[in-house]
């Protein structure tokens, strides 16, 4: 675990689906990196939406110094008690779009 919200998002389901389609490891890794980066942007969008704007600078500074620190989640919970659920929901929504694309490729391959 390298980021404080890593336990809320998971890429294993996308990785399994990609394994069925793509054999090459480096290709899968590149695709997963793209998904991971998109998830970070989406999660950061959710966090900054929930956090009052006057605390944005402070949070971003602390996050840049200690990205893995679980205290960030404690800090965010003070402003939004259900932040964990919101991060999960946003991550699932983002992953859904990527899964849809994988589904399209699977269908095309079968037909």
């Amino acid at each position, binding site marked *: 675990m390298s980021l404080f919200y890593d336990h809320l998002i998971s890429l294993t389901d996308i990785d399994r689906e990609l394994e069925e389609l*793509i054999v090459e490891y480096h290709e899968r890794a590149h695709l997963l990196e793209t998904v991971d980066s998109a998830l970070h942007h989406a999660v950061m969008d959710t966090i900054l939406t929930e956090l009052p704007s006057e605390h*944005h600078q402070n949070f971003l500074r602390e996050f840049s110094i200690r990205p893995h620190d679980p205290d960030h989640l404690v800090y965010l919970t003070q402003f939004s008690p259900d932040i964990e659920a919101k991060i999960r929901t946003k991550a699932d929504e983002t992953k859904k779009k990527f899964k849809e694309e994988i589904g399209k490729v699977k269908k095309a391959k079968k037909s």
Partner: protein
Amino acid sequence: MSLLSKFLGRGSNEYVYLREAFASHHHKVEEDLHANHPHAVPTLEQHGVDLKTVRRRAASVVAAAAIAGLLLARPHHVGAPQLDRQQAQEHTQLAANSSEKGSAANKLSHSKAVSLKKPASSGSSSTTSETNEKPSKKNVGKGHKGHIRGRSYLAPPKEHGLHDLGLHKGDKNAPHPIKEKGKKA
């Protein structure tokens, strides 16, 4: 065909399609963040954080912390002298003795304060000599093997807590063990 595409760096058809599709979704999410919070990305850039590579950065931070912790736990890896078990025990004994000396000094200062209060009494010197008795030869070599300050690790905690602070040693009314032995003899 697949070998040729591999050499050309294109990859399989599925990969190429997914790469483009994923990139467009990634771009949309990135745009959303920029539109909703335009100040966030410049702030992160100011601190040298890119959300695309944040995981690598976090991993390096964690690794650096782990290495620092390891070096602090094992200082001889950084050049500090390595102590074997016997030397380490000697160090702990020295530390224990110095703390005992500190408590004796406290007692001395306390007894001096008492003697200052009663300058006329002739027995004050004898009382100070009793309180500042040197440890007997039997006790010097013993050390604290398996015990913290004479108490077993398995012993239940003292209820009043005075034993932990070493305050029980200053009980004036208690009979002195060495004196009692002398009387008996």
